[in-house]
């Protein structure tokens, strides 16, 4: 049953060096506050799993938290490249980064298999592409009824998954509405799960396209207002496109990146302080 706790304790207790960690959120509800807390606590050798590594994984990779990345699309959406990600792959900086690369459909089905306690998932894909040449976790499987050959991908079962949601209720049930992406499967496939939420409400009320993840899914629920910035939380705040663009020149330069991270992330105690710090620099859209 989920314990409402603070994020620092949740990360300290549930995320360990060397863990396979999934922070999910498909453009919407990206768990930035949790990523920063992992950076602050100096986690190392993580296998980072995420369909769309974006600013948070760029930052974690640039800060040397990761030894491996499992992903399907790595860019700064609407802006361009993730420069820390590219620098790690192209130049091994700050440490070498192993990659395991899939398509979105492959990643999504790997989470589904993991959430279902199955060792693999089946899909129509990959055949004729170069992905099987560079990614070992793709293999053919034959239908025992029709003889047809399809592709299999192994389950993802992260040691810990972290998602950001709009609300938890007083019992710890977690609600996401709007685009919920792969968060359900990310949380359910993991050995341990953490949710950060915008707020705790007494009772959940229906919202369009809402899903509710029961309290028993989570080991910890922490309140982190604005915790998905610069992505958005439907009903709370919009995507901060200005920040995504402002990130480009910072991420592009190793020194600019280090000093930005030291000032705003390592130099702050929590996400609230961080947010005031970057807002003070005009990086946040009004």
């Amino acid at each position, binding site marked *: 049953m989920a314990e409402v706790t603070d994020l620092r304790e949740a990360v300290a207790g549930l995320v360990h060096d060397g863990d396979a960690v999934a922070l999910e959120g498909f453009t919407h509800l990206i768990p930035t506050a949790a990523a920063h807390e992992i950076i602050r606590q100096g986690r190392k050798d993580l296998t980072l799993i995420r369909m769309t590594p974006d600013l948070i994984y760029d930052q974690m990779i640039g800060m040397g938290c990761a030894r491996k990345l499992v992903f399907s*699309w790595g*860019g700064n959406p609407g802006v361009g490249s993730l420069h820390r990600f590219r620098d790690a792959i*192209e130049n091994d900086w700050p440490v070498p980064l192993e990659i395991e*690369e899939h398509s*979105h459909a492959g990643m999504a089905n790997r989470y589904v298999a993991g959430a279902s306690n199955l060792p693999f998932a089946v899909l*129509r894909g990959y055949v004729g592409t170069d992905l099987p040449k560079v990614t070992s976790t793709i293999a053919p499987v034959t239908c025992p009824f029709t003889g047809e050959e399809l592709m299999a991908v192994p389950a993802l079962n992260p040691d810990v998954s972290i998602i950001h949601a709009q609300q938890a209720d007083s019992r710890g049930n977690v609600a996401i509405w*709007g685009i*919920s992406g792969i968060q*359900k499967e990310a949380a359910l496939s993991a050995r341990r799960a953490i949710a950060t939420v915008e707020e705790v409400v007494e009772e959940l009320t229906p919202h369009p396209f809402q899903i509710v993840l029961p309290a028993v899914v989570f080991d910890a629920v922490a309140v982190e207002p604005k915790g998905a910035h610069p992505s958005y939380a439907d009903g709370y705040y919009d995507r901060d496109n200005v920040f995504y663009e402002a990130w480009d020149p910072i991420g592009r330069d190793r020194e600019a990146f280090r000093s930005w991270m030291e000032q705003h992330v390592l130099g702050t105690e929590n996400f609230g302080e961080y947010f005031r710090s970057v807002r003070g620099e005009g990086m946040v859209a009004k």
Partner: protein
Amino acid sequence: MTANRGMGEAAAPYTADEMMTVAASRELRDGAVCFVGIGLPSEAANLARATHAPGCVLIYESGTVGAKPDVLPLSIGDGVLAAHADSVVSVPEIFNYWLQAGRVDVGFLGAAQVDRFGNINTTVVGDYQHPKVRLPGAGGAPEIAASAREVIIMLRHKRRAFVERLSFVTSVGHGAGGGSRDDLGYPGAGPTVLITDLGVLRPDPETRELTLVALHPGATVEGAREATGWNLKVADDPGTTEPPTERELELLRDLKARTEAARGGSTRGTET
């Protein structure tokens, strides 16, 4: 904004990018279920929705079905996509129950590189282990290319994008040409058209090689050949694309203006 490359000296009242978007939008028939990538494809699909195809059902890989964005999304999961959607489903559902299930009529893709058979690279330029340029990767493209009933590709015509040999095959078009795509067992028909800022390419019915079948006004066969990294096949008598109508241009510019305003004046590119 792309310059009016190849469009002759008489300044057209529209850009080459606008022509490309308008030409692509016309490929989408009303009522079609269309799986849309961010950037140029999204622009073209939403222009189609604003003009001749109000009933087309736009699907974005974030899980929005029947999205009706009033401004162009900057990311694949922008809130504007969910706001007036018919439904919002999970990412596994959008790929398994919609795309793989054959419910998508048209897949609308961008690319970093394309080859003569419409195969697409969005992964790396150079060696995979030591890339010259690391691109974002596959995303949803391989399965869109595999399972959409047909695929429309949009890509600005440049020699480094239209290559003899892809560094990496991320998404399969017509494979090695001929019947080679069928041999892979994919349900969809593959790319039926490639729209560039110079013209329109369609696969040869037999060889499946992309063939220049129309030029946008002002563009030339020579310009297209120069901008292509292989020996471009040209139809015997390539047609000329109908220039954008006033209404198309007005609606496209309106859409882009609303988008810029909503983004707080950002003018950064929308392509990923």
